């Protein structure tokens, strides 16, 4: 009889369902008094370094309908390209920037919205710099396993053109699905990142 590996299997995913907000953002669904503030609402404080930006968008299903029960999480580097994580070995990230955010899509408009800073560039495995990006994770009813994607910035054309991850996208017509267009909202740079789960212009999702 051959030897057995001692590794375990990852627990299989199950959908977050329609009531993910009870666990993730209870105050937002009027379950108040359990804990004071939902996690992930605030990314920046007065001492956070970097350019303040708004990131917003909507999530669409395969028929073009806006999904109003999704939960979006983002994870990003600080203004110098360092992650606020014990696993970050390259230096010490801005202590005034957590880098993680969580927002529901609005029950009426379907829009999600984060106030954050523009991240710096971080290296790919071979040392080349990736373009500035925000890691985005989407869960909702009907999504059996959370979807990973990346937001890139529309005004970073040069960096985007040399990003080793974007270069891996074989079908170039899909590239724009990862690029958030820049506009201004009350003087704040605002990046709109719509996520299409299916259909024409389906967002590029990653198996990481």
């Amino acid at each position, binding site marked *: 009889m051959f030897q057995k590996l001692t590794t375990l299997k990852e627990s*299989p995913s199950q959908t977050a369902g329609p009531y993910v907000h009870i666990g993730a953002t209870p105050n937002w669904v009027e379950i108040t008094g359990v804990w004071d503030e939902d996690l992930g609402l605030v990314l920046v404080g007065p001492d956070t370094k970097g350019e303040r930006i708004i990131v917003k968008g909507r999530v669409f299903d395969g028929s073009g309908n806006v999904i109003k029960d999704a939960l979006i999480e983002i994870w990003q580097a600080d203004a110098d390209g360092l992650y606020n994580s014990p696993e970050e070995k390259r230096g010490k990230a801005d202590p005034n920037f957590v880098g993680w955010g969580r927002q529901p899509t609005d029950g009426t408009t379907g829009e999600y919205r984060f106030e954050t800073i523009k991240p710096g560039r971080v290296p790919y495995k071979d040392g080349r710099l990736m373009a500035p990006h925000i890691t985005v994770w989407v869960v909702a009813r009907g999504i*059996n396993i959370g979807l990973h994607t990346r937001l890139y910035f529309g005004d970073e054309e040069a960096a985007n053109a040399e990003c080793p991850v974007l270069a891996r996208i074989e079908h170039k017509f899909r590239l724009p699905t990862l690029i958030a267009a820049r506009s201004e909202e009350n003087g704040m740079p605002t990046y709109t990142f719509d996520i299409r789960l299916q259909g024409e212009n389906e967002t590029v999702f990653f198996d990481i």
Partner: protein
Amino acid sequence: MSDQGSYYQRDRSWHPAALTPQYKTSVLRSPQYPLLSLDNTISEMTGPRFGHGTIGPLDNDLIRNFAKTGDAIGQRIIVYGRVLDENARPVPGALVELWQANAGGRYRHKKETYLAAIDPNFGGCGRAITDAEGRYWFRTIKPGAYPWPNGVNDWRPAHIHFSLFGHAFAQRLITQMYFEGDPMIWQCPIVSTISDKAAIDQLTAVLDRNATLPMDALAYKFDIVLRGRRSTMFENRMEGN
């Protein structure tokens, strides 16, 4: 032991597929293009860490953390276990968040329309951070089964939703816990999005009579496994050359 390698590739045949027509909502919410495979970069191998200061003393006690006039109604249970990685090592400092219906199978949510009664003393959310051995525990009530609009007469088995943060964003996971011996597990279109029975069994908590609190609460053990990481014994040497 060095811990710097990327995470093991996710076994997508162990997880549910995106498109599972028996769970109707997945039909329009499932990507149709193949996922773009990306060996982890530092963006995925890092993640937020939540300190013990994040957590209040009643956050893991769903019988009391929303109570207004008395304890939540229902069968009192302890849910406990460990968060491990695929290398069978504990994951300390993991944030475990959970949510569930009340004993009658009703969620406290404005979109919830099931006729079962709301329990004024039950909110349905809890959270904990694993200790140095990866252990967590909750006190709660056993959730009821509930009907849902999918088939004409589909019911969810009793379950608790779990969300997990390990040490890297690549480990991010949402799943559900079921209860040993529940015949409704095998009638559920969401459970059956998982094709391997062994994988479903991995989500099924086991009654633990030894962990029961006498005259108080039954106990269920539920271990959770997050993705494991390659050792870099060899990679480091290669980088050094």
